[in-house]
């Protein structure tokens, strides 16, 4: 746990006083202190290409009255610097008075350990794994022309000080191990990428030589793509595999259910609360409470304990995801979804682990039911236009389906759909829900935060596939 007050002239008492004095006439706000330590070690082109360590320390001071948010950050933790920030906040809010809401829920549950993953594995042994990955893949097949493998690890300690001196703390470990391989055969080049990670030590993810499985998966995806044919263009049936393809849920539904866009009525979902937005049998939750998952949080970045929020229950829209600010303005409660990339950024309502729960059909049944369509197994990134509701995501592994059978692999294509209507096109929900491998980062308003997704296999009756073959 970081002690933010032992390296400067700012004492805890000073900080409490400045915070209380600043937030006295405001509706909400806090001082957020953060220290992060992170590393990145990359092997590329047969060599250790970079080894970087980084440490960051700073505070973000926020005051809110009515609809106005004043924010000031600095990476200098000192009495003067905090007083300067306080003056900034007061001058922005000088004519707007509020009543401070002291209430913040408490919980003793923790969803990960206070560890520093960087220190738990020596640099030597990290370098050894990266070199093994390189050798393993290059020996595996002559078509392997490029290998990139990397470790990324982080420990982030935060402390939130609220008016009146209440303090909330959290220590968050996060790691990711990634392998990318490029194959070349008969003049064609294709890449395959796979990674794993979460909020435990590197070795929790790498035990039993698990790095080999990561290599095999990256190699398999690249090999499939070497045989791929141009993707079809037009509307057709789409079967999505379980796990990571749930970024469809994240893009199509998740962002549109974040509180800020609904308070501002700029989301295509803002007037659909209580309405049917998905087929019967479709239930979607956003869950921050799964042990050690990438998107899990013990408390959010405002100090609210996270929870499992039901967004859509059996097709009906039940809840939005809320931070304190949007919840207050919408007369509801925070769902523990207030997040920020780091102390340089304001809090926004964000997703954690967004999951569609299992139904009772099988993937086989889905494939057999399709005359002409595609089977999408893995994806790169996605994006959504919140207002029009249109969203896309990019296949990195997909196959044609002809007459109920899986056919040739097809080239990476973009799939596009309409968020508010896509879940009504879901005609089968599988019994095989799976979590993603722990690699997702969600971007919003220039801030990236780690997230997770999960889903069973699903059949979508109509979606536009953006290939080149007419």
């Amino acid at each position, binding site marked *: 746990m970081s002690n933010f007050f032992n390296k400067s002239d700012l004492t805890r008492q000073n900080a409490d006083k400045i915070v209380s004095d600043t937030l006295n006439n405001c509706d909400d706000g806090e001082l957020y202190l953060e220290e992060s330590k992170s590393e990145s070690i990359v092997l590329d082109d047969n060599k250790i290409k970079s080894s970087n*360590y*980084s440490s960051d*320390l700073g505070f973000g001071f926020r005051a809110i009255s009515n609809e106005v948010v004043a924010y000031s950050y600095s990476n200098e933790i000192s009495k003067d610097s905090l007083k300067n920030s306080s003056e900034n906040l007061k001058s922005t809010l000088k004519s707007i008075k509020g009543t401070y809401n002291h209430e913040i829920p408490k919980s003793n549950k923790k969803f990960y350990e206070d560890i520093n993953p960087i220190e738990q594995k020596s640099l030597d042994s990290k370098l050894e794994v990266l070199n093994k990955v390189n050798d393993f893949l290059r020996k595996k097949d002559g078509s392997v022309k490029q290998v990139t493998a990397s470790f990324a690890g982080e420990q982030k300690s935060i402390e939130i000080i609220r008016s009146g001196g209440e303090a909330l703390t959290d220590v968050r470990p996060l790691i990711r191990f990634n392998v990318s391989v490029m194959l070349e055969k008969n003049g064609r080049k*294709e890449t395959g990428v796979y990674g794993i990670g979460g909020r435990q030590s590197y070795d929790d993810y790498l035990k039993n030589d698990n790095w080999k499985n990561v290599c095999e998966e990256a190699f398999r995806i690249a090999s499939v793509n070497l045989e791929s044919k141009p993707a079809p263009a037009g*509307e057709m049936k789409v079967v999505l595999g379980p796990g990571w393809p749930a970024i469809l849920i994240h893009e199509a539904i998740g962002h549109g259910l974040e509180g800020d866009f609904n308070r*501002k009525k700029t989301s295509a979902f803002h007037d659909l609360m209580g309405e049917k937005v998905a087929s019967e049998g479709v239930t979607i939750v956003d869950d921050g409470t799964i042990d050690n998952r990438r998107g899990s949080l013990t408390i959010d970045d405002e100090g609210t304990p996270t929870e499992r929020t039901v967004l859509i229950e059996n097709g009906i829209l039940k809840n939005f995801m809320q931070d304190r600010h949007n919840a207050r303005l919408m007369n509801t409660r925070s769902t523990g979804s207030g997040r920020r990339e780091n102390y340089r950024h304001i809090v926004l309502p964000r997703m954690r682990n967004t999951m569609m729960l299992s139904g009772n059909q099988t993937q086989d049944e889905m494939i057999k039911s399709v005359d002409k369509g595609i089977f999408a197994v893995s994806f790169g990134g*996605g994006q959504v236009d919140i207002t029009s509701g249109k969203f896309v*995501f990019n296949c990195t592994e997909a196959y044609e389906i002809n007459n109920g059978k899986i056919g040739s692999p097809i080239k990476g294509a973009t799939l596009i759909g309409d968020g508010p209507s896509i879940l009504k096109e879901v005609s089968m929900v599988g019994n095989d829900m799976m979590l993603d491998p722990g690699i997702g980062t969600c971007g919003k308003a220039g801030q990236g935060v780690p997230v997770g997704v999960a889903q069973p296999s699903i059949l979508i009756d109509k979606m536009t596939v*953006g290939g080149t073959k007419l």
Partner: protein
Amino acid sequence: MVKDQEFLKSKASYCLDLAKKMGATDASVTVGHSISETVNFRNKSLEASDRSDGLALSIETYLGKRRSSISSSNLLNENIKTLIEKCFETTKITPEDEFNSLPDKNLLAKQISSLNLYDETRFENNKKIKYLKDLEESASSNNQIINTESSFTENKSNFILANSDGFCDGYKTSSFAASCVTVAKDENSMERDYEFSSKRHLSDIKQATDLGNKAAKQTIRKLSPKKIGSEKISIIFDKRISKGMLSAFASAISASAIARGTSFLKDKIDEQVFANSINVIDKPDIIKGMGSQNFDSEGVNSNTLQLIEDGILKNYLVDTYNGKKLNLKSNGRSGGTTNLYFEKGNISYEDLMKKNSRSLYITETIGHGSNIVTGDYSVGATGFLVEDGEFKYPVNEITIAGNFKDMFKNIILANDLEFEYSVNSPTMMIEGMTVAGK
């Protein structure tokens, strides 16, 4: 006030001295300070105001051909000392890489000419508020606009780059940026669009009312879109999208992608990769340019580069490390392109619009559908169906797809190039791409 050169230089030399003292054979350091203030408005009233004040330090230490790096925001000498110790310890156990080195001394920038990248004008928050009020007033004058959000950001930065070969230089830069996002609604749909202006000097920022009007106009025209069928059609890319083709091209000719063999443009130097009417230039010394620089992120002098001449690929974007791998000298592009642009074409915008009786005009793309290994391109798109040179109706929920290798050879550029951003392109037409819709 942004920290002065003296302060940054003293931190930089403290780091270099310490690294040398610990036994580093070479070192380089960048120290920067940046202050920004942003005011956000929504529906004609203040929504948020934020101020950021950030120092940043990054150091690379070398022990012969071994190298590692650290970065931090904490510039207290005691912390710097701990970090450099850690960095150097890591360097010692990092394997050697024959291509690791500081840039060649004779390529380092020697004379710094003023590019007028810093405007010291302070635009106080109350003036930002006035600007945003005017902007949103004009943006919301049409009653189909149901939400307006806008922001004004002022940034002042300063930096010093120093290395153990004696390079030590840096300069102040400023930027001012105003943006507006509007949402319009009719009985069939709700749509969003935007407009922004970003400049080195305050006086060059677009008028508030022009920005607001333009955002509103661009949003309203998107209402009640239709989905079109799947077909091959010629596509006209609005300037804000056509410049993205240049960004994809730039990532495909970075020395790192070439050295790793992960670019569809590897081994294409002196070959035809664009239509023969196309010229692409990267010019670092445009006065007040958003991408202008005196030297790259390693201190290497950067000159104007003709990347594409009459459709032929002439240069990669080369940094020291990847240059050594490829046996090429750095051309001052560590950190990428500077002010990158297509030279203007010789057909007017109006004639381009009328070139085909039917075409698709794209104003926005979504998704990350550019693959520089294979050249495959597939993105979600929004735009307008054009018939006989006129916008007929808005189109959405479609994708456009092709391969850069073919697309680049089929580019036709209009003559409407303007220097607004760090990457600039005229309006562009590409024939023969596939649209997937109904």
